[in-house]
């Protein structure tokens, strides 16, 4: 059977307690790094070797990202943990925060050490009230144990960690918007370049990592990058948390190696489609990823393979839809989310998402025009690639994929002014 790296403690009682964590070998990696003579460069090297790629969605190699931080000591450096997990369909970080927060804390300490940060912020999604409490408690435990604070384990290295709760904006999951939010401003993404690694929080070099990414660090240090890289296919080190939701019999978070096929994931692990229905579509990487049809579920779930068929692995949130789903309604629901969450800073996303939602709502109300699907495609084309941050693309890609792959459903709606799949295909409020 597959080795469980991140989820091995989850079923234990009091898995969030430091005792439980330390009993399973927790904080040994930290000890190894701080007292075992690891230099920050060596840590980065080990992480590079592990082929660990960012788990937030973009999949950028973590070691490489850390190495971008300038060595220049004139400015403070910051480590920021992005726990603003808001993508619809994604709930993996929440499990780490709630069930094994110390794995994250150990990871962030090692990461901060590697980039030379003296301060670390954990930016937790506002709605994650309970997880935030758990992490807060875990931080207190770590301070008590001397893993945080001044002169960690006598190494001379000091680190302060602050937990900050967001106010509920999806956009603050975007790293520069998150930094703005941290600085106390409106969560508007920044223009890039400059990238945060050079000009980040308070204009200082900043590394922003996803919760799951950092949770992998202790394991990499303890068991070696080589071992970690071997867990997955080439260039995709380690296992990965997939959040399966939708019309499957057993939705939930699954730790699976990268490269497993979507079919295996759905039928072998999640117990197949509920009520024996036929699968219709799958969104493989969070609601912003282009949708896949039932014919495409033999794809291997790693960044390259998914990208090859025009979608993306993203945050590993797999949403499964069966034959009873009206794709127009599904798209309207997704679009509503992005229209609601668009920050309003740049024109295409601000105006385009709202317009697309209005059109989709109109189609659902039976007032669609034959050329509305074409308009949707044209509008998404005017958003995609034109915006400051990826939210524009996130809103545009589902529209593009839904309308092109399920065009007949949209046309049916527009021509017949009703739905032929769901008898009560209501308009999302």
């Amino acid at each position: 059977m597959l080795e469980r790296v991140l989820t091995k403690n989850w079923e234990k009682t009091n898995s969030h307690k430091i005792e439980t964590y330390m009993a399973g070998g927790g904080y040994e990696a930290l000890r190894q790094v701080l007292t075992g003579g690891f230099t920050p460069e060596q840590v980065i090297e080990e992480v590079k070797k592990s082929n660990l790629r960012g788990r937030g969605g973009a999949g950028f190699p973590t070691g490489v990202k850390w190495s971008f931080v300038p060595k220049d000591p004139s400015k403070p450096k910051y480590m920021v943990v992005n726990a603003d997990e808001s993508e619809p369909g994604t709930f993996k970080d929440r499990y780490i925060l709630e069930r094994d927060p110390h794995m994250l804390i150990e990871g962030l300490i090692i990461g901060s050490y590697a980039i030379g940060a003296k301060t670390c912020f954990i930016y937790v999604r506002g709605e994650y009230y309970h997880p935030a409490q758990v992490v807060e408690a875990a931080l207190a435990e770590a301070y008590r144990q001397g893993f945080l604070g001044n002169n960690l384990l006598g190494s001379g290295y000091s680190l302060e960690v602050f937990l900050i709760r967001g106010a509920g904006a999806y956009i603050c999951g975007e790293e520069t918007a998150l930094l703005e939010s941290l600085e106390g401003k409106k969560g508007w993404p920044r223009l890039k370049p400059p990238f945060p690694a050079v000009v980040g929080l308070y204009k200082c070099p900043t590394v922003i990592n996803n919760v799951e990414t950092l949770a992998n660090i202790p394991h990499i240090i303890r068991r070696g990058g080589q071992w970690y890289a071997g867990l997955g296919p080439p260039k995709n080190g380690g296992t990965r948390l997939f959040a399966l939701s939708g019309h499957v019999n057993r939705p939930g978070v699954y730790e699976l190696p990268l490269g497993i096929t979507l079919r295996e994931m759905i039928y072998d692990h999640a117990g197949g489609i509920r009520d024996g229905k036929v699968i219709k579509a799958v969104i493989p990487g969070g609601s912003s990823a282009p949708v896949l049809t039932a014919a495409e579920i033999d794809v291997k779930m790693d960044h390259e393979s998914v990208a090859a068929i025009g979608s993306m692995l993203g945050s590993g949130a797999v949403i499964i839809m069966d034959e009873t789903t009206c794709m127009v309604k599904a798209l309207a629901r997704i679009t509503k989310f992005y229209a609601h969450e668009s920050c309003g800073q740049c024109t295409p996303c601000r105006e385009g998402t709202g317009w697309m939602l209005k059109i989709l709502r109109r189609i659902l109300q039976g007032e669609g025009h034959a050329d509305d699907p074409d308009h949707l495609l044209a509008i998404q084309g005017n958003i995609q690639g034109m915006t400051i941050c990826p939210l524009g693309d996130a809103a545009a890609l589902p529209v593009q994929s839904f309308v092109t792959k399920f065009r007949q459903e949209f046309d049916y709606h527009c021509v017949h002014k009703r739905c032929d799949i769901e008898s009560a295909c209501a308009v999302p409020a």
Partner: protein
Amino acid sequence: MPKITIDDKEISVEGGTNIIAAAQRLGIEVPHYCYHPGLSVAGACRMCLVEIEKMPKLQTGCSTLATEGMVIKTIAHSAKAKAAVQGVLELTLINHPLDCPVCDQAGECGLQDYYMKYGLYNSRMRDAKVKKEKKASALGPHVMLDQERCILCSRCVRFTHEITKTNEIGIFNRGDHSYIDVVNGRSLENNYSGNVVDICPVGALTDRDFRFQCRVWYLQESDSICPGCSTGCNIKIHFNVRRRHIAGGRRVQRLKPRFNEAVNQWWMCDEGRYAYPSIDENRITTPSARLAAAHQRMDWRDAIDQMALALREALAAYGPESVGVIASPQLTNEDLYLIKKLFVDVLGIAAVDYRMPPNRSAKNDDFLLRADRNPNTLGAHLIGLSPFGKEISTPRILEAAAGGRLQVLYVFSTDLVAVYGEAPIANMAAHVPLMIYQGTNHNRTSTLAHLVLPAAIYAEKNGTFTNYAGRVQHLKPAFAPLAEAMPDWKILCKLAQALGHDFRYADEEAIFEELANSQPAFAGITYAGIGSHGWPIEKERVLSFVTA
């Protein structure tokens, strides 16, 4: 100096220049809304997208800096960029109300301009526009807000954040419900609030003062210099003399700042901006003489003759000590030079000064507005109209007048009553046989004067001001003087001729030429050299005169 290629044209620009600015130098327009050279880059409107070789995505011209060998195609050459810009413009317009007929911005509106150039013309928008809360509401004493017209370019927000640092305006809410408003019930009240109207590319922020006064296409413009303080902000006078039924026949409709890197950049203060009504209101229109209590209109010829006679008699009977002249730093260098030439050099009068006791309540505001509310104080000084050195001789002149030692007191554009109070000036006027007031507007001093002469106001004048930093700047006339008013120098020439001195000048430039030849501080300066951006007199020269 990176060398870049824009639309097949090569140009070398300084490092750090963005693509919009580089293209501008080549005369290529990159459409934009949120970018303003005086503000930080926001990159929000997405109108300035250009195609850059070796970059897969379109880049914004505002935030992309020129780097060596960059090959850029603007919408004129790139179909991809053009389609993108058209798409962005379409999105900008979908929620914009169609109220151009009532919008003051119409005619100088970025949306209208770009729509005509790059618009799709056929609307695909079938759905209702987003309604916002504030339609035509006041944002402050000078600025009107219409949230629906706003395209959220954030220029105004950045202006109050970066230039005035007052942070009154913010963008609230999210997505297509975003709107601009003032923060926490504050009001947009700072001395530079009018500038947000200038930088607003659409009709979201309009000028309350200009509201519904005149459609902008009726306006003509003329370059001038603000006479409000010694900064001498470069301005444009927007006036309407073609359709006189508009705005009650007022000629000047508004003032706008004119870019001058060395003086005011893109900005001007509200105090200067809204001071224009004096150009058309309460003007002295004809020469008049005070008979008993009332003033009676008279001919220019009679007025000049009367002055000349009085001066000649006073000089003959009582000598030059019997004449006092109070000049004004509101006058141009040309006017002041002639005052000096006529009264000091030719007639030998010593009691000539232009200085008033400083107004203690006026302060520099660390940006544009200066405590000295006169545009040409340094000019008057450099011309040499401070004969008693550092000491201000105005009170002495007035004292002499009140003591009956003056036969003629000639006051230029200075409201003595405002400075010294009504009673002393009335008393003084009663003791001088002839008090002449030559100025632009009626005031209490003109009421007390025995002879009132109408002078042209700055908008009607050709001439130069010297600002506090020694920059000689040229103001051009927007229109002819009102009614019978004449530029001060012409009045002085007529007076000089009536006194038998051959003062003849073709125009203001001829006077300035003589001034430049005779006054070392102005040596080498010509109107052509001043141009539209002014001529800075070297600092050492200015200092040597100020301290001398």
